[in-house]
């Protein structure tokens, strides 16, 4: 565990799951995970076919969805014991999230989108001296510096995804979760995006959980997990 993790005030593995079950509709289990664990600083590639429950699992890890049964510890904190408000605060403080697309609030500028977590979370805010300066540094590294004051609607998809990464990384949260962030990018832009993502995650010393159904990306990660093999619900009832 790094000095940085100590400063983040968290201990334990990045993700530790045991006998986790979740269903949107009673009787139709989407997630049934006997065990899943990965360590701090790992870059994890999680793949599975459409409908296998990837996004659902990320929602559980982010504390947006509540499992019906099981243990779910993120950065050493058992989410199942937290109140909903506490889970929201935990997510704001320790998690960076990147969606497949449409990551940005349309009526905020690029800079405002990037600094949004600092405005929602005191913890996140406490880890950066100046959110605007931090946003500039990240924008520089992600090669979107000239766009900082632009309207997000004027951005290309690739630029939007990099803005989303900057927002996920600001205040250096311990866990970065990406839900198919490259699926809307062509091969060239996808490779450049991954390069920038890896460099910046390494810089922040964060753990990266990257979900995709594009197995060709797997080689760049420390670990590759197949949700289909882990998830009993998907193995039996998936699409």
């Amino acid at each position: 565990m790094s000095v940085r993790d100590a400063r983040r005030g968290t201990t334990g593995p990045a993700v530790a799951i045991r006998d986790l079950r979740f269903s949107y509709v009673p009787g139709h289990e989407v997630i049934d995970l006997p065990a899943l664990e990965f360590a701090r600083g790992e870059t994890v590639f999680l793949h599975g076919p459409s409908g296998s429950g990837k996004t659902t699992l990320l929602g559980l890890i982010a504390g947006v969805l509540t499992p019906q049964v099981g243990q779910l510890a993120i950065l050493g904190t058992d989410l199942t014991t937290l109140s909903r408000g506490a889970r929201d605060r935990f997510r704001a403080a320790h998690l960076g999230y990147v969606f497949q697309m449409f990551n940005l609030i349309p009526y905020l500028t690029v800079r405002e989108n990037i600094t949004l977590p600092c405005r929602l979370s005191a913890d996140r805010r406490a880890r950066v001296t100046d959110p605007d300066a931090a946003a500039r540094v990240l924008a520089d590294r992600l090669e979107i510096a000239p766009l900082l004051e632009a309207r997000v609607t004027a951005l290309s998809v690739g630029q939007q995804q990099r803005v989303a990464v900057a927002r996920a990384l600001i205040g250096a949260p311990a866990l970065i979760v990406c839900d198919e962030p490259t699926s809307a990018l062509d091969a060239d832009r996808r490779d450049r995006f991954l390069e920038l993502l890896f460099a910046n995650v390494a810089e922040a010393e964060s753990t990266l959980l990257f979900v995709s159904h594009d197995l060709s990306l797997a080689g760049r990660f420390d670990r590759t997990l197949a949700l289909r093999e882990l998830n009993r619900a998907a193995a039996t009832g998936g699409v």
Partner: protein
Amino acid sequence: MLLLSLAWRSLRNRAVITGLTLVSIALSVALLVGIEHIRRGVRESFAGTIKGTDLIVGARGGTTQVLLSTVFGMSTPTGSVSWATYERWRAHPAVRWTIPYVLGDAHQGHRVIGTTAEFFSRYRFRDRSVTFAAGGPPETDREVAIGAEVAERLGYTLGREVVLAHGVAAVSFAEHTAHPFVVRGIIARTFTPIDRALYVTLDGLTAMHAAEEGAGGLMMGPPSPHTEGPAPITAFLVGTKNRFETLQLQREMNEDRTEPLTAIIPGVALGQLWQTIGSAEVGLRVVAALTLVVGLIGMCVALFASLESRRREMAILRAVGAGPRTIVALLVLESGVLATLAAGLGVALVYGGILVARGAVEARFGIALTMQALGTTEWLYLGLIVIAGTLVGLLPAWRAYRNALTDGLSPSL
């Protein structure tokens, strides 16, 4: 602060729909507040029809009839009051001044009032006294002063000869041609029934009726110049020396046996009259309130409609750490901001409207619209509008809350 700025930016982002919603609610607010404003203006104009007079005294009859016949020139007088009785009350120690009224003649459908110089010096309406646009009060028995509307409608100017007629019908069958009058003054517009009347001296009326008699003409003048001495009058206005004596004097007059009289306090009688005719305003208010309800429903619909397209935005906010309650707060804040802006805009519309239209409204209807501050009723309305508007936002917010809980991070679009 973050939420407020988010709510504001989000509203601005949907400028067209926000603008339309804003205008529709603002118009209903303006209607509601405007009606209240006009209602107050009308009420004050009405209550100001006669001021400074402590008692109106006529022959025994109904309160409203005495008021209508003397002040508004409507309905027929309750009868007549003998000159002796008038003199007796005028000498009463509590009485400071009196204005006698002799009614019963007309000119081209306009009422003619025989009175004294006291009328021009003592009569008050809305704390103003009678002034002249041209000329002055009638002094001789051949002079008449005419109201602004009479002058305007009939096109009369100073020096014009006027023949009065018996009775108030527009086309009179009995004209007092033997004793014509000359316009001596045109009274400045008052926006009270004064504008629609003509004023002559008591001597003028007596002389006119005497002339008819002498010429062997009709002899049906209501306060007919019967026996010796001055003719009876129709009513008189009283100013007391001391307001506290008014009630005492009123009782004395009403209970006096010599000649049965009815003495009314103008303010009280006006209030009663307003009560009976004022119920129409309730209907107006109901219509305005309904308009407002429609406006609020429109806002609710607009918020609901925007909700579907904003599920993505909600998911993003959730991913960044906003709780479902924050989402609710955001939406409620949006509707609250919208309602507050609409209330402000509505009030601005009312004052803007008053500023633009008050000259025309006063000239046309005699309703004095003033730029007075909002009254408690208006503030109450505005408070209710903002609260109702904010609460209306709760419905879509509740929906968003449930979506936020079930959607997770991938809203099913």
